[in-house]
């Protein structure tokens, strides 16, 4: 009798050990990690951005419409309330946000350690290492053949970090008959010779709010991206004066400006 009790007790311990071993299996980190979402809401001031539709006015009083807005978000890191930091693994940390594709505006990050988060930092653009990496490592959003995005300079190898195109009556008429303006910003610092480095790290503190990552719920960090800031974040840019900014010293001004366009909008627990 006693012997039977002992045996069943042993069996119980063994099975508990077995089960917990299963639970701590590194391929199923469900208990210790969860998900978090970054949602980018592109706006102009407080108005939602509408491609080819809405007419907005920049800080120079110039009316404009937007036909394209694309930007890379990469190298994402989350800061915990205890001051520690979690870095999203490199290979899973490159995203292209496109105004024309609403699914691209929602970045879902999985395998985030459970905990309380107080802020997020990310790079607007593609870091120099990835900009010079073997083609075999440039997949997904970084594939130079990624359909129709035109976010890669083939003649001066490198990614376009940020692309804003539109029209304005203040822009001169181009070859296609449009009053078009375009800002294409790239340049990661150069490989064999130094170039401009337009990589910008954006830090978004959640202030008093906390994003609580749990095994079951994924908090949503909603980030407002204000296109108006592209013309005025640090330095005022006028469409009439500089309708086209690509590879020129002025690209540094556009980059400094758009680094100011991201703000925390809301945090929703889900």
């Amino acid at each position, binding site marked *: 009798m006693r012997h039977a009790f002992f045996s069943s007790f042993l069996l119980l311990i063994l099975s508990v050990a077995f089960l917990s071993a299963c639970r701590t299996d590194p391929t199923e980190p469900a208990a210790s990690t969860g998900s978090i979402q970054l949602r980018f809401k592109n706006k102009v001031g407080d108005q939602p951005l509408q491609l080819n539709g809405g007419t907005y006015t920049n800080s120079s009083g110039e009316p404009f419409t937007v036909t394209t807005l694309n930007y890379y978000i990469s190298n994402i890191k989350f800061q915990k309330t205890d001051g520690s930091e979690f870095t999203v693994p490199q290979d899973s940390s490159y995203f292209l946000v496109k105004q024309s594709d609403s699914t691209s505006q929602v970045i879902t990050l999985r395998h985030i350690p459970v905990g309380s988060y107080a802020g997020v930092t990310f790079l607007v653009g593609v870091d120099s290492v990835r900009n010079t990496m*073997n083609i*075999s490592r440039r997949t997904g959003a970084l594939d130079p*053949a990624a359909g129709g995005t035109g976010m890669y300079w*083939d003649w001066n*190898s490198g990614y376009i970090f940020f692309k804003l195109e539109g029209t304005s009556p203040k822009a001169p008429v181009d070859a296609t008959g449009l009053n078009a303006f375009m800002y294409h910003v790239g340049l990661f610092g150069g490989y*064999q*010779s*130094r170039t*401009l480095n337009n990589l910008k790290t954006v830090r978004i503190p959640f202030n008093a709010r906390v994003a609580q990552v749990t095994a079951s719920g994924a908090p949503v960090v909603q980030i407002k991206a204000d296109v108006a800031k592209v013309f005025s974040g640090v330095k005022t840019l006028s469409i009439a004066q500089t309708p086209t900014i690509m590879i020129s010293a002025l690209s540094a001004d556009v980059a400094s400006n758009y680094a100011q366009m991201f703000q925390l909008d809301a945090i929703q627990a889900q």
Partner: protein
Amino acid sequence: MPYKRNKTRRGRLAGILAVVLFYAIVVSCQSGAESGGAPVTPDTTATVIYKTTPYNWKKPANFPDVVYDFASNPLTVEGVALGKALFYDNMLSYDGSVSCSFCHIPGSAFAHTDHSLSHGFRDRIGARNVPGIENLAWRTNFFWDGGIVDLDLLPISPIQNPVEMGDTLANVLAKVRNSGKYTAMFKAAYGTEEVTTDRFLKSLSQFLLTVVSANSKYDKYSRKEGTTLTDQEARGLTLFKANCASCHNGELFTDGSFRNNGLPKPATASLDDQGRYAITLQEADKYKFRVPSLRNVDRTLPYMHDGRFQTLEQVLKHYAAGVEDNAQLDPLLKKNGTVGIPLSSQDQQDIIAFLRTLTDYDFLSNPQFQP
């Protein structure tokens, strides 16, 4: 003795033998298993066994170490064959009118001698002279302005350039995927028929890396293979070493740097090409262009980034008497306050005689480079 062709051929023969032998063993096993002993009709739709043959790529004895990372793209006979087929395929241009070989003609050391500036689809004229293709494994950068530093990324540029092939990489990959022509070739080279950016670009690199020129009269002289230079060629070599080799240096005849060689500004504003400056935006790089190799230079006319000179005589005359001073002029072209390189007309002729020893006839007619 030619440094590699015999060995390459031997290697290939061994490769073919190995394949035949392997096939024979497989077939014998299969027919054994059939047990009936009746002859088996070869089934051409049967699964192709994925087994690549390493390409026997050899560094010429007189060349320095390579730059290209072969470990990231091991050359195979199948990969090279695929790259060559793509290189010669008009499908790579928007309207199917031009291939890579349209501008890069093997008999002209892969340059284009008919135009000063590149000639693209729909007769569009580019901004620069088509450079030849040779010895790319040793190159640290590409194009006249060095805008590209990785051979694998190079083909994207001509494919997408609106005055060259005028398409998009995505569209070209879709055409290659849908053509049917490449299914077996991708399978043979990579194991599956999947057409990816990586596979497409790396197979083009594989073919381009085989385009090695190292069998000119000069090479045979340099490797002491029993060839001697004529008196004039030898005088030219001495003059070349004293006056030209600081930029066109080593066995590749370039140091890979960017320099301003004092070309007079063109009268047409649209042809005012600022070269390296467009890449770096540094004032010091204005009007600097990549120092080109001089191998096969006699066959890669016209000369300079804008193809302004048609003959080597004009080029030498420029260095002797045509260099214009400017803020970024290379200091080597302004020694002791004198602009240009002091060369008599006899010196110039001797140097040209030497430059002609850099023509590699085996390379120009190599059947392995032909479609």
